């Protein structure tokens, strides 16, 4: 049952990412809900489940985007792993740490994408456009992430009450 809920939630999340968000953010910068989920799962899921969920959503994102397959698996997997490792060592809760880490991971995510695009696929990307869009992308994610973290917390608590399993359990 818990996996079914997870699959429905992911389908819902990807549908929002690929449809609804473009209406709200019509410009070039759109927040990456999948990246926020990767960071959230890395921080909040028990043991090392966060790494696997982050890598899985990255893989799904690869399938639903035009980029090279494996790019988002790599970036989201690394993000999940990073937060799984550091969550016990430094403060990763609260609006400012969440905003800061989201901004930093957005930069990493954007850089991994552009590095693979320019090196493996020889895409033509202007450097000034690259930096301005990555920074805006980071700011956008950093602003939205605390609110989404709050929503995910509430959803996870509700799910845990409904389906008291290990998957939705807090750290």
């Amino acid at each position, binding site marked *: 049952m818990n996996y079914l809920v997870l699959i429905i939630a992911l389908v819902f999340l990807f549908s929002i990412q690929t449809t609804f968000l473009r209406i709200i953010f019509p410009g070039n910068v759109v927040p990456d809900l999948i990246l926020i989920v990767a960071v959230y799962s890395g921080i909040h899921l028990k043991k090392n489940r966060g790494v696997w969920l982050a890598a899985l959503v990255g893989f799904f994102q690869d399938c639903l985007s035009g980029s090279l397959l*494996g790019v988002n698996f790599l970036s989201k997997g690394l993000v999940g792993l990073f937060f799984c490792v550091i969550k016990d060592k430094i403060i990763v809760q609260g609006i400012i740490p969440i905003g800061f880490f989201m901004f930093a991971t957005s930069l990493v995510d954007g850089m991994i994408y552009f590095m693979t695009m320019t090196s493996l696929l020889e895409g033509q990307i202007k450097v000034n456009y690259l930096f301005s869009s990555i920074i805006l992308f980071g700011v956008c994610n950093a602003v939205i992430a605390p609110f989404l973290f709050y929503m995910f917390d509430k959803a996870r608590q509700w799910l845990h009450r409904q389906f008291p399993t290990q998957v939705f359990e807090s750290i």
Partner: protein
Amino acid sequence: MPYRRPQSKYFISILAGILMFSLVLMTVNARYDKVNLFFESIVVWFVSPVQSLFTTATNSITDVFDHYFFLVRTSSENDRLLLELDRLSKKNNELLERNKLLERSANLTEFIGEDERPFVVAKVIGYDATQWSKVIFINRGTDHKVEKNLSVVTDAGVVGHVIHASLKSSKVLLITDSRSAVDSLFQETRKSGITVGIGEDICEMKFVPISAQVSVGDKVVSSGLGGVFPKGLMVGTVVDIVKQDHELFQDIRVATSVDLSNVEEVVVLLSGKEGG
């Protein structure tokens, strides 16, 4: 001797696993680009009905706001006039192209006859899951004879080409994506170049010699070379030109003829003679 927790080894093995698996995926994807990967189709198959539902709901809501709350009649009238303008622009473009071709060659009629292709109308149901790639999802797939490398257009001009076709939906790479390239020529001077995407809302036309006469406002159409886009489709309009004496080619920026951020329906030009 420092104590090293077994957990560290575990994390290192996970890191190695992630790196290996992503490398394998990227290599397979880059090496066997022509092959539709099975799991990609499965994920698209799962998500596309929900995407379609979301798009319909979102369009209904925005339609209510646009046409009833904001501007009761003006918006509808404007939409109708814009469609009419698109139709007339297309007609004008067709006539210009026909005239040019008649001037150059007596084989024109035969060429146009050959170029009449079956098509399928598709609805845009979603956008790329990342903000970096310029990709849209359409609600037509292999069920409707849509396949890889077919061109996707609207009344206003070129949109992109199909990069992946599932059973009931397809991915279309827009001409603004940094991996897109359309062999093009200027409608007036017939000088050729390649219109490439740069990841922004605008394209660049490459390999236009410094000596070629180009001015802002010149129309760019597809040349028909490359095997994806038929000849004479509108690609865009020149909006900026930079000429540097020491360079061999001009830097030309081209605004796409189609508003790619707001495209709702597209036409996929099929390869066979059947369909429609």
